[in-house]
């Protein structure tokens, strides 16, 4: 009764602090969400028209060499040739189906896409987690003791790995570990006939994933490590770090409690940006290691092209990037109060 009303009536400008939600925060969140939504709407429409202006006659191509009469062809074309307004309406009601089946698979596009999502998520997700952990750790180590032996070895190794062409690197890994040493399978996600519901099945999948995940992680971690190193270097020379040192704090405490949290921000942005592309798969890696994910599906859809499938995939990929961006923005706001105001 006594204290609360007083505070409520006094217009105190809240000082934004890490981890609290205040009204500027709310404005920030709403702003971000709205802008993401706007982008999404734009992409949905752009996607629709993009595929309508592409030249070519995929139906004739798919039916080349088959005995089909004109009525059958007309039926196949009817879904692609419907009036634009009607197509747009169907598309907006359900962008992943729009009443149009994949030309190549003869199934609703979502039924073609959905079984391939887990493979891609498993591959790129695992690789991203490993790459982030290893990359960040390496970056901190080498940045904090710049010029040290660890830094020299790690930076040069990282640079070599970073500049390696994916296909070539993957193929080398495959030839050495699968063919010459025979430790890992050449391709696929599981041994034919393995029941994936059992622990042995899971182990089998893990065994199949070792090479592709390692290849992908090696390519990703280099990037994270370089960025992390650069931002640690920048933070190290900041005055607050000197202050912390002057206070007599231990070197490791200064690093862990003061420098790293600030230096993590750019890397975090990068990780989340990349997360958006996770769903797009690592086309090259899926191709080298014969993994049937969204990346290799995109390659298949491009041959033809299978317009309805390609359209749905493009939409899915752009939506994933937009959502990941939004999450990154929101988290950034949470971690870095300066952004919110």
């Amino acid at each position: 009764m006594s204290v609360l009303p007083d505070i409520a009536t006094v217009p105190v400008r809240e000082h934004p602090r890490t981890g609290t939600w205040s009204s500027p925060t709310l404005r920030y969140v709403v702003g971000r969400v709205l802008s993401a939504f706007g982008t999404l709407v734009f992409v949905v429409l752009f996607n629709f028209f993009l595929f309508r202006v592409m030249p070519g006659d995929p139906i004739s191509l798919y039916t080349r060499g088959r005995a089909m009469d004109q009525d059958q062809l007309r039926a196949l074309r009817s879904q692609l040739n419907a009036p634009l307004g009607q197509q747009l309406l169907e598309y907006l009601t359900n962008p992943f189906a729009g009443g149009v089946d994949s030309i190549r698979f003869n199934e609703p596009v979502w039924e073609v896409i959905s079984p391939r999502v887990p493979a891609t998520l498993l591959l790129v997700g695992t690789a991203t987690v490993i790459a982030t952990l290893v990359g960040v750790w390496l970056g901190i180590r080498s940045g904090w003791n710049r010029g040290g032996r660890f830094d020299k070895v790690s930076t040069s190794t990282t640079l070599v790995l970073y500049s390696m062409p994916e296909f070539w690197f993957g193929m080398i890994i495959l030839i050495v570990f699968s063919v010459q040493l025979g430790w890992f399978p050449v391709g696929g996600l599981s041994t034919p006939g393995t029941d994936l519901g059992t622990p042995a099945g899971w182990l089998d999948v893990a065994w199949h994933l070792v090479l592709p995940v390692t290849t992908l992680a090696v390519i990703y971690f280099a990037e994270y490590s370089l960025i992390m190193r650069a931002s640690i270097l920048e933070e190290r020379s900041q005055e607050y770090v000197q202050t912390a040192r002057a206070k007599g704090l231990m070197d490791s405490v200064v690093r862990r409690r003061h420098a790293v949290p600030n230096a993590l921000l750019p890397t975090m942005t990068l990780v989340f940006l990349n997360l958006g592309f996770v769903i797009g798969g690592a086309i090259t890696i899926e191709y080298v290691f014969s993994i049937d994910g969204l990346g290799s599906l995109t390659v298949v859809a491009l041959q033809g092209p299978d317009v309805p499938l390609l359209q749905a995939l493009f939409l899915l990929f752009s939506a994933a990037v937009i959502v990941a961006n939004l999450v990154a923005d929101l988290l950034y706001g949470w971690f870095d109060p300066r952004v919110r105001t």
Partner: protein
Amino acid sequence: MRTTRLLALAAAAALTVGLGATGTAVASGSPSPAPAAAEPVVFTVGMLGDIDSANPFTGIAAESYEIFQLEYPTLTEYASSDFSIVPGLAESWEESADKTTWTYKIRSGVTWSDGTPLTAKDVEYTFNRVLNGEYEQTNYGSYVENIAKVEATDDTTVVFTVSKPSPIMEKLYVYILPQHIWKDIDEKAVTSYKNEGTPKEPTVGGGAFVMVERKVGQYIRMQANDNYYGGRPAVDEIVYRIYKNEDALGQALKAGEIDFAEGLNANVAKSLEGVEGITTVSAVYSGFDEIAFNVGAALDDGTAIGDGNPLLEDVKLRQALQWAVDRQALVDKVLGGGGSAGSTVIPPIYADLHLEPANAFGYDPEKAKALLDDAGYAEGPDGVRVDSEGNELRFRLFSRSDSPTSQKSSEFVKSYFEAVGVAIDLKVVSEDALIEIVGQGNFDMFEWGWVVEPDPNYQLSTFTCANRSYKDGEDIYANLSDSFYCDEEYDSLFEKQSVETDSAARAEIVKQMQQKLYDDSPYLVTFYYDNYEAYRSDRFTGFVPQPDPDGALLFQYGTWSYESIKPVVKAEQGETGAPAASESGVNWPVIIGIGALVVVAGLVGALLARGRNKDIDSDDRE
């Protein structure tokens, strides 16, 4: 610092060893490919594409047909030796003297894989389903075109009534389906019916194998059918594994992950030659590539369309161009020797039908020039020939961005044509763009090809007047004809062969038609290309080529190899049968070489980095 680095190294080492250990542990736990006494014989095929559907009314991919013919019988089959017609599910057949009915005698005592009797009723059901179903006709419409009625008069007799005589009646490649299963899948459900077997519920079929599992995009497993009328195969299980690129396919064969690699390219096949335990096959194939000429684009009603150069309507010009191309050089340089020089549109693989023209166009640029001079195309000031009105012989040649072969061979053809004074503008487009360009008649020449079926009807129909582009509403669509060839005599020969049920008499007509096309030259057939296959000859033996002796071992018209292959006998197994990759096959020099390369790259990187760090450090210390 030193401790950290050691720790890091130790961690990395532990990780590697750990992963390796997991790998080997699982490897030894998983079904080993070397067949032990009681273990099933598994034949693993690696291929580049997945099936598009396991439903025989839906699937159109070559991989799908390979599965269908394993699962379901057909009335007759194509012999492995020479594609002649041999008994399948039917043991005999006969056309009535008045040519109005065909009577098929079905084998008696045959059962489906689930034990249900397989009778003439199933045949009747299948054909009626195709006859009466709109969706069912998409794949099999051409077989039932002339069938008016199908009736099973008893358990082993089926009578087809035909509206007109047709040679296709003895090669009805329609997969016979079990009525007791498919009757429950109505005309609506069939469009989305998957027909994928599971280990508990395999598909019900009457062929040599039935499907027990499919993992989309990964693999398909087929199990031997104990009730197969041709006798149970020696192989217990076939596994099809899907690889995304030819290199991986070749590596999988080397590693022993697969026993057979289908659809290799020339480079990978060459790299496998001479590898111990592997046999490579450059199989003659039913495909050809051609340079097609726009001989006067028009709709099926004769209305001219497109912007093709009218000079190509001159048959003398086209014949002169035929003399300008060294086809054998194309085979050697574009195909790496894997093929033969092209002549007519029915490939020599079909020995009974193929015509080797007596008046063959050889490679003779001088003759080509002389013919062009005679036809009135004199050389112009800049070396490009012109007609009497001064129009340049300058043509657009489209090649396909989807095919490196197409682009290479177009480059060669361009230089051959230019050598005789005909200018070529090369354009590279995607196949789906090209089919539209061709359908509208907006081209002069293009490079493409066909894969020809054992029955020549479809291929020959691509040159009929009726199959030129057509108009649907306001839009013009491509039909089968892509040269717009239209000739009355050819069309009447086409009609004649389509009702000739005597195969020798029909072959004569088909040869006349090839001669006509060869002389009129709407196509310049560049080459017949080979299909590369490779297999583990240390594990399986007994493959049957189609045709004999240098044809394909798998992906045939028929399932000949699957039914006759056997695992290599145990005595030899003891010596060479160990999983090829692990102990014996390790190529240490290669590994050491690669290791050395990585170390060198690392050292160079380290040196560079050190130099750079020094610079930075000195700047920093000021």
